[in-house]
């Protein structure tokens, strides 16, 4: 039997796994070696978080699956992450803006989940809060440096904000996934987190001499229902092909 909040745990795990995959791509491509390490380490924290959550999910959804089953053997329509985390890597400015948004959201949502009625989920969440706070500080420091840096870095941050704008509303949408978990007393509604998350983000942007996140003529939706953008298929192909080409391989 599947628990009411199983889809929420899947959504949190998929957000973490897919963003970890994107962050891992920065190793050897960041502007300095310390940043290869930093983005790689942040990705590692998210991957560890995803593994813990998939560990819970196998009993919550009643299938008994393990972490590798979820990561390697599901197809695109079964992934429940938001569109922002699957978007292709662009320049470093965009990654910092994306990290600022994701880490700010994670700080707030995991802080709320730390008092979840599901004590196992609460345990993973309380660990996640301190880590995401560190990630958020990292994004904040780079936002200040780039926004209030050269005209080139400032312009890149402006265009990064324009690029992420269509993906922000989806982060705070109360979909059936979050509503079911909140009704069961184990989740949190994303809409209730929006003001705290965006206040932090907008304060950092203002300090970095940047205008806020601009409005957008369109917005992403559907990630929580398994509807994804073109980028998702390519990401999964790279992430899954080894496991699928050599089923059961270990090292």
């Amino acid at each position, binding site marked *: 039997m599947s628990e009411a909040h199983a889809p929420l745990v899947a959504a949190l795990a998929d957000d973490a796994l897919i963003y970890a995959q994107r962050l891992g791509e920065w190793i050897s491509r960041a502007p300095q070696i*310390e940043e290869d*390490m*930093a983005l*790689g*380490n*942040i*990705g*590692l*924290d*998210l*991957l*560890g*978080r995803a*593994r*813990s959550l998939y*560990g*819970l999910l196998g009993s919550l959804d009643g299938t008994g699956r393990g972490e590798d089953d979820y990561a390697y053997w599901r197809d695109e329509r079964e992934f429940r992450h938001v569109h922002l985390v699957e978007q292709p890597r662009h320049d470093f400015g965009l990654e910092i803006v994306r990290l600022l948004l994701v880490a700010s959201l994670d*700080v707030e949502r995991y*802080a709320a989940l730390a008092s979840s009625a599901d*004590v*196992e989920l*609460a*345990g*993973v969440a*309380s*660990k*996640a809060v*301190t*880590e995401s*706070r*560190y990630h958020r*500080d*990292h994004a*904040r*420091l*780079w936002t*200040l*440096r780039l926004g*209030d840096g050269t005209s080139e870095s400032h312009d890149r941050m402006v265009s990064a904000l324009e690029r992420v704008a269509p993906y922000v509303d989806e982060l705070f949408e109360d979909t059936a996934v979050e509503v079911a978990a909140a009704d069961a007393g184990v989740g949190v509604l994303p809409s209730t987190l929006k003001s705290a998350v965006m206040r*932090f983000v907008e304060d950092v942007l203002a300090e970095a001499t940047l205008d806020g996140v601009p409005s957008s003529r369109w917005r992403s939706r559907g990630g929580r229902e398994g509807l994804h953008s073109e980028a998702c298929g390519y990401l999964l192909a790279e992430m899954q092909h080894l496991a699928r080409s050599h089923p059961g391989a270990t090292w």
Partner: protein
Amino acid sequence: MVMTRATPRDGRLSGGKTPASPTPARPSREESRSSAAEVEQRVGAVTDPEIPTLSIGDLGIVRGVEADESAGAVRVRITPTYSGCPAMEVIARDIVDAAADAGWDATVEIVHSPPWTTDWLTERGRAALAELDIAPPGPRSTGASGPVPVTIGRAPHTESSVAVVCPRCGSTDTELIARFGTTACKALHRCRACGDPFDEFKAV
């Protein structure tokens, strides 16, 4: 909770690595099994693979050791320092090996609650870090979104609210080079007095 049933490494005794205490021709398990207190002590003495002077007992990640004398089975609960710490699997395996050397079958469980913080490090653990020239963690910041001092200049991502003491010369005239160091739990600093770079065990 994630259950890890690690198995002893194949060929550990015959492989390239020399075990700490070689056990020649092992007698039967029951005869050679040591006491529950002994196996608990051995489990706590397993060292962190990335910080070899630091035992997992002193690191504060052992959350419980329950020995079942009649079955010769011991259940060990450990908690990660960081969610993605890649050393957890090696540690789980080393626990199984250490228990096996004492004649016990160990099951290692990874638990997440309550989360580990640097407050769980013992004084002996802090001394073990200093021995390797790693600055022990300072007080944890618990503020949700307190101000982070920032210098805009040559190294503006340098952030330090508490002076980190150089583990080599004791100077407090140090600067942060990178917030993410050689492992997930460390940050990289440089001492302006003696010129040496050094790791800091981050306070979380």
